[in-house]
């Protein structure tokens, strides 16, 4: 027994002595990876893996929201704004050695559109066809003029894929695991290539020698998946991971920010949370009821009580700091406006003895461990008037999605990570007829749809501004959804890691990170 203990001790010491920290970054997260295919993956973390293993024609400057050339060295549009031409970088190769050119771009777009996966609308709603002008020039012909089209191209569904790695496009057939790829390995154009994939356990990324840009400081990135935030925090404190991102509990963030061994990166993110109302068949078909419930929300209380100051109250579906935002909910309802709510409810015939009753739904883990607290606090806020009685109900995410698809939840909490950083993605996605179906709101109004079409096709800043301001004014009357708060992007690292840059598009590039020498 003694011998075994000595052996273990020696082995442990040998291992710790051999750990070379400089070249490998260990990153912890509670997120999950979905499909290794930009044709169907539509979640924050999987896109993050794509940002680092693939590349777009255009990208964002690290930590900012300005578009910069990436695989395309330049781009231009025609006068009508319905054709965009991209000049491609020459001599670029995928990590599997496949040359990158305009035919690859066309193949990718056609493939992803054919598959009709979850994010395919980002292509099919806008792109009519793709033309190969010459080997290094590609033209996108759009269905209508789209002012923000380069921002769309900066998204993973537009990222060029290697035809020697990804299978041809077939409707509804996409790649889940790298083992399904030709060659069994994910080949991309990004800074890193994926060398090991163990779902829900660990992903290993290593420097891609074929990458056209600068070599990263960390040659290897190990992403470890944690079952819960508490264990992840402890692993950071123990030194088993170098940084953690998405999602720590608010109390953990507050604790770690007081600890000099760690650096807390905190930035206002474009992630928003809101209450979604099913507006077509549920009890909330009546917009006055939606207005009454919205008036009762007390956003500062929510951000303080539930998120301990790690979130910002939000008074428009367009987030703070974004172009065209108008905080109309603050002027129209304020916070915890019981008098306004009671006035509406009384006019609808509700009394203390005959209160308005409804179920408030949340999903317990999809948005972190604080969701039950959020539901409790909102219930208490709503029940400040005796004219309303709320029953809290919860459903795990797969059920939750099914229920909103089937219109089984009248009001429920949802969150939104943008597909592209533009006010259109924060408005049409909830109040446009097709977008609102995807979010379980089922709001449809031809006047609204016409406004969205107009702002999407307009290339004039003043016109777009006027439309978005009008839409935000209309929002407080129709209330298809009620904004609650905007999240911070919070990443905690040990002091030895520098170079964290996460901007409004929420793109986290590992090649920006550097160890302290």
């Amino acid at each position, binding site marked *: 027994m003694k011998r075994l203990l000595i*052996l*273990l*001790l020696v*082995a*442990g010491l*040998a*291992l710790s002595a*051999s*750990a*070379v920290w400089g070249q*490998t970054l*260990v990153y912890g997260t509670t997120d*999950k990876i979905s499909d290794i295919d930009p044709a*169907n993956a*539509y979640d924050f973390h999987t896109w993050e893996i794509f940002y680092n293993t693939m590349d777009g024609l255009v990208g964002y400057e690290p930590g900012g929201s300005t578009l910069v050339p990436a695989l395309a060295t330049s781009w231009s549009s025609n006068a009508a704004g319905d054709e965009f031409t991209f000049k491609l970088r020459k001599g670029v190769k995928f990590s599997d050695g496949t040359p990158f050119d305009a035919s690859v771009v066309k193949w990718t777009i056609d493939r992803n559109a054919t598959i*009709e*996966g*979850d*994010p395919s*609308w980002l292509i099919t709603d806008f792109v009519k066809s793709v033309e190969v002008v010459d080997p290094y020039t590609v033209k996108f012909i759009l269905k209508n003029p789209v002012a923000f089209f380069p921002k769309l191209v900066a998204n993973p569904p537009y990222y060029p894929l290697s035809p020697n790695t990804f299978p041809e496009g077939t*409707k*509804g057939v996409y790649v*889940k*695991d790298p*083992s*399904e790829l030709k060659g069994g390995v994910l080949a991309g154009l990004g800074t890193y290539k994926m060398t*090991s994939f*163990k*779902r*829900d*356990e*660990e992903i290993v990324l290593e420097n891609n020698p074929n990458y056209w840009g600068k070599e990263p400081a960390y040659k290897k990135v*190990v992403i*470890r*998946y*944690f*079952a*819960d935030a*508490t*264990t*992840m925090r*402890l*692993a950071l*404190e*123990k030194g*088993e*991971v170098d940084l953690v991102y998405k999602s720590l509990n608010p109390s953990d963030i507050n604790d770690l920010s007081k600890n000099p061994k760690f650096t807390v990166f905190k930035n206002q993110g474009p992630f928003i949370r809101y209450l979604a109302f099913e507006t077509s068949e549920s009890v909330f078909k009546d917009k006055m009821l939606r207005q009454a419930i919205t008036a009762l929300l007390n956003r500062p209380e929510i951000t303080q009580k539930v998120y301990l100051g790690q979130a910002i109250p939000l008074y428009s579906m367009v987030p703070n700091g974004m172009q065209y935002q108008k905080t109309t909910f603050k002027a129209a309802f304020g916070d915890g406006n019981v008098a306004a709510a009671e006035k509406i409810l009384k006019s609808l015939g509700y009394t203390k003895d005959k209160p308005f009753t409804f179920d408030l739904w949340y999903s317990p883990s999809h948005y972190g461990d604080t969701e039950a607290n959020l539901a409790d606090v909102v219930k208490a806020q709503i029940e400040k008037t005796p004219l309303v009685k709320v029953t809290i109900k919860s459903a*795990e*995410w*797969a*059920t*939750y*999605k*099914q*229920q*909103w*698809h089937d219109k*089984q939840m009248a009001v429920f909490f949802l969150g939104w990570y943008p597909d592209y950083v533009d006010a259109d993605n924060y408005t049409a996605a909830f109040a446009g007829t097709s977008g609102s179906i*995807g979010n*379980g709101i089922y709001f449809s109004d031809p006047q609204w749809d016409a406004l969205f079409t107009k702002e999407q096709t307009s290339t004039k800043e003043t016109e777009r501004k006027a439309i978005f301001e009008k839409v935000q004014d209309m929002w407080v009357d129709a209330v298809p959804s009620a904004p609650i708060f905007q999240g911070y992007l919070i990443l905690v690292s040990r002091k030895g890691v520098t170079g964290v840059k996460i901007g409004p598009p929420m793109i986290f590039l590992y090649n920006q990170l550097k160890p302290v020498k």
Partner: protein
Amino acid sequence: MRHLFSYIITRVLLAIPMVFIMLTLVFVVLRVMPGDPVSAMLGGHAPEKVIQQKKQELGLNKSIGEQYLDYIGKIAHLDLGESMIFKQKVSQPILEKLPATLELTFFGLLVSLAIGIPLGALAARRRRSARDYGVRFYANVAYCIPVFWMGLLLQLVCGVFLGWFPIAGRTSPRVEVSAFSRTGFYILDTLRTGNIAAFGDVMWHLVLPALTLGIVLSGIFVRLTRANMLDVLKSDYVLAARARGIPERRVVYNHGLRNALIPIVTMLGLQFSLLLAGAILTESTFSWPGMGRLLLERIYLRDYPVIQGVIIVYTLFVSAVSLLVDLLYAAIDPRVKY
């Protein structure tokens, strides 16, 4: 010997209806639960026609009866089917994750026996002394503590404050698992390849999860050992041994404990299912990549075939261990014959 063989055959045959009942229950419960693999897979934005096409591909548009018959047909051919979410045979993730769970449960069981039996014997020997009360108090506390809470406590104290042990995963991120992993049993693999540094790392990672599981289960073994020992120590042959002047220590541990262990071995089989249930929570707490985490993840994704496959494997294990224990019982108790 012939009787033993027929006993084994009977027990194996009895396991079949047990698996069948479990399978049917799980199958029905999964199908009546709201949510399905397609909505979990495709998200909220997929067009309705794609959703319907996917349901058709996965056979989810058929009636539950038809789906059940299809599934039972496959099981009859020892085919667990294919995952509805990932393009892989159900056996693939199970074979990947099973070694992690078996290593954890094995060492968890060892810890629980290593704590439970000596403490139970000590309490019986020193009945109504301060040690007895102390051990009984420990047993009650250990039995009542939720596994995840015990896990967190050990992570915090032994992992973070004292810094003695790692708190998550099976290996350190800097250990190249591919360099030694062949069977998935990391302890065996590292020993087989002579990778001592990795072996140390694997054992180091196993300490806290195995302790967590072991401590929680040890409460039962303390109480069982104590109760059985007290009965045995009152028996005539123990009295006779004492009368012959055999030292008390030998009487207690050689005569008493050996006989008291017989019912404990029976309980071992019964506790195995509890051990597996505890392992699910332990795996979650320690981000241990085993069957428990696989089960939880796939429940979230409504991956029906994998959930059913994991349950079948659990059921088969419980049956196998129960059979093994019965056979062991015959080996250690000469009164038992098959």
